[in-house]
């Protein structure tokens, strides 16, 4: 059967079915249209749709279709649409996948639109730089965050932990775990053995990153061994959350140790403090990832989310207009608030400051206090990062459960990670 006839048969059927099937096409009054696709949550979706309404009010000639799904499903759908060359005009992008999409040619550069539709005159340079791949801007920062150790303030006070959590060291942290566990009966901390984000900070304090500039694995066997040993010592002393719960990978946020009242300290991204506080009765304070005495700065400030223009965008001018409003329009930015991270436009930050909620204040104060204690932003992760991360957690599981010796497991991980990166090239 030729393609043509097959199609016309199907088209005929399509018409017949369409009569009954109520196609879900939105009624388009406007003659221009753009699609915006993001991963969300109930709060973010509400705010984003409200921003779309604001944009529609200013630009009734451009119809904006807001498309949202959750994080896990987002990348499945995104990959399918990319393969079908039917990506939304504007997509939300994550730092860990920016290289995957930009280097493979799925995104358009933004450089030619800067000052020419896209107004970035008020943008901080630091946050903007995170969106560059090979010298070209592929992604616009729509919020920044950093690593954070959330602390249950009540328990830390009860236990008499006095170390300043912005400058504390790993020894201070172990000491805090000890005090909390003995004085309050609640375990000191979540077991972060399987948290690659924490291992990354640890390695950076030793002067290495997750990856080297050439895209090979930066972690050494020594880094991984030391890191896993640090936690093993605390675990054996009974100061950490039970290992059964530690080995549940990518568990729902709400099953976290602090929320379930099992631990007093953990690790997250700084924009999650607000969500964490919403699920906890005790006040949440924020500390930095412990420092290595005499080591290099480990933490960094990174874009929490980006907005990118895709290769399938049809009405580029309209899309850029929307993007520009998103980061500049006072009405839109007021609605978005800090939900996606700290905005990179100082005017926007100043306008928001008056209405901060208490957890938002904690988050912003933390952000201000770490500015001079962080290192450079590492390069976006190379292809294969997802798989390296999975391997780390898988092999680390054997360590936590006591099925493998630390040194042996660390060696296995470095070998596996190297192989994965080689294969992904």
């Amino acid at each position, binding site marked *: 059967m030729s393609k043509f006839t097959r199609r016309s048969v199907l088209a005929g059927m399509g018409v017949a079915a369409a009569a009954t099937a109520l196609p879900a096409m939105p009624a388009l009054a406007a003659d221009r249209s753009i699609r915006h696709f993001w991963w969300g949550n109930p709060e973010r979706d509400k705010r984003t749709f409200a921003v779309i309404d604001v944009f529609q009010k200013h630009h009734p000639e451009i119809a904006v279709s807001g498309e949202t799904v959750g994080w896990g499903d987002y*990348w*499945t759908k995104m990959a399918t649409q*990319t393969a079908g060359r039917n990506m939304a005009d504007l997509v939300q992008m994550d730092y860990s996948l920016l290289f995957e999409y930009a280097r493979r040619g799925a995104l358009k550069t933004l450089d030619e639109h800067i000052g020419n539709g896209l107004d970035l005159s008020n943008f901080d340079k630091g946050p903007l730089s995170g969106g560059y791949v090979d010298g070209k801007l592929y992604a616009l920062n729509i919020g920044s965050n950093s690593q954070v150790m959330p602390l249950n303030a009540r328990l830390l006070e009860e236990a008499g932990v006095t170390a300043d959590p912005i400058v504390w060291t790993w020894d201070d942290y172990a000491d805090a775990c000890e005090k909390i566990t003995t004085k309050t009966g609640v375990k000191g901390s979540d077991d972060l053995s399987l948290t690659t984000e924490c291992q990354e900070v640890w390695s950076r304090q030793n002067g290495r990153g997750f990856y080297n500039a050439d895209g090979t694995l930066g972690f050494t066997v020594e880094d991984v061994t030391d890191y896993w040993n640090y936690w093993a010592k605390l675990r054996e002393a009974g100061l950490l959350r039970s290992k059964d719960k530690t*080995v549940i990978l*990518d*568990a*729902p946020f709400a099953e976290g140790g602090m929320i379930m009242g099992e631990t007093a300290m953990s690790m997250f991204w700084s924009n999650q403090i607000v969500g964490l506080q919403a699920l906890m009765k005790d006040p949440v304070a924020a500390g930095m990832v412990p420092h290595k005495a005499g080591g290099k700065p480990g933490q960094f400030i990174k874009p929490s989310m980006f907005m990118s223009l895709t290769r399938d965008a049809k009405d580029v001018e309209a899309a850029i207009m929307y993007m520009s409003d998103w980061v500049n329009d006072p009405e839109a930015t007021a609605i978005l608030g800090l939900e996606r991270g700290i905005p990179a436009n100082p005017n926007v930050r100043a306008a928001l400051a008056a209405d901060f909620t208490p957890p938002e204040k904690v988050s912003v104060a933390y952000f201000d206090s770490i500015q001079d204690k962080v290192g450079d932003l590492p390069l976006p992760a190379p292809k294969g990062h997802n*798989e390296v991360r999975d391997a780390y957690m898988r092999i680390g599981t054997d360590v936590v459960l006591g099925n493998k010796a630390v040194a042996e497991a660390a060696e296995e991980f470095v070998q596996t990670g190297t192989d994965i990166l080689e294969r992904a090239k």
Partner: protein
Amino acid sequence: MKRFFLRNSSGYVFLTPWFIGFFCLALGPILASLYLSFNRYDMVADPRFVGFDNYIYMFTRDRRFWKSLEVTFTYVALAVPARLIMALTVAMVLDKGLRTISFYRAIFYLPSLLGASIAIAILWRQLFLADGVVNKVLATVGFTGPSWITDPKTSLYTLVVLAIWQFGAPMLIFLAGLRGIPRDLYEAAEIDGTPKWRQFTRITLPLLAPVIFFNLVLQTIDSFKVFSPAFIISNGTGAPSDSMLVYTVFLFNEAFKFFRMGYASALAWVLLVIIAFFTALAFLSSRYWVHYENERD
């Protein structure tokens, strides 16, 4: 002769919707996946032909491939028989004139309604963690259970338990089948004084054979392809230590998480061959134990 053509043509007439669906919608994508299995395809750039590389890598270098096969075969070997026996037993109990049958039927179907939802994932952890409900119950009889769901030695069994517990679909099919067996056969046997177990082997089993066969084949296929329960309960990772890494979870991650759609397609075709082998075995054996009413002499 004329009648032969008449019959032949009416067969095709009845199959027309299926023909259109198969040749226009199904076959193309299936062949495309076969083609992609010989390519390196990251879904963003165009596919690049690599010959048999994917297949060679799979069999010679990919340890997780073998691990996922081991997990899947274990799962199939345990879940299929257990679920079928459960479904058949309950169906027979329900079929034997209890007045409250429709009530129980609905109750027994409930777990299957929840499918592999997020609720099941959370519930399963609350049941099978070290401090979970199951161990609390076991503690009352003085037994200390492991952390079933996070111990690589036992975690797969929690999936098998889920499969057994969701026996609703095969149960309903068995019930429909039992309803097709003429009552008077049992009445006659009752008068002859045939004992119950012999009624079961002489009447129930042979007449139910086509339905048993259906359930056996379908449950086997579905269990080889099992995805959602393992994916949901292990948060998509197959953890701990790959003990829940069933084949399709492995395949899904290769495709959508690691951007290797070509490799995933090759995995899919290997699975298809495995399933086809077992299905063919079932069909061949069915000649000896499944007899159909409309093919009797």
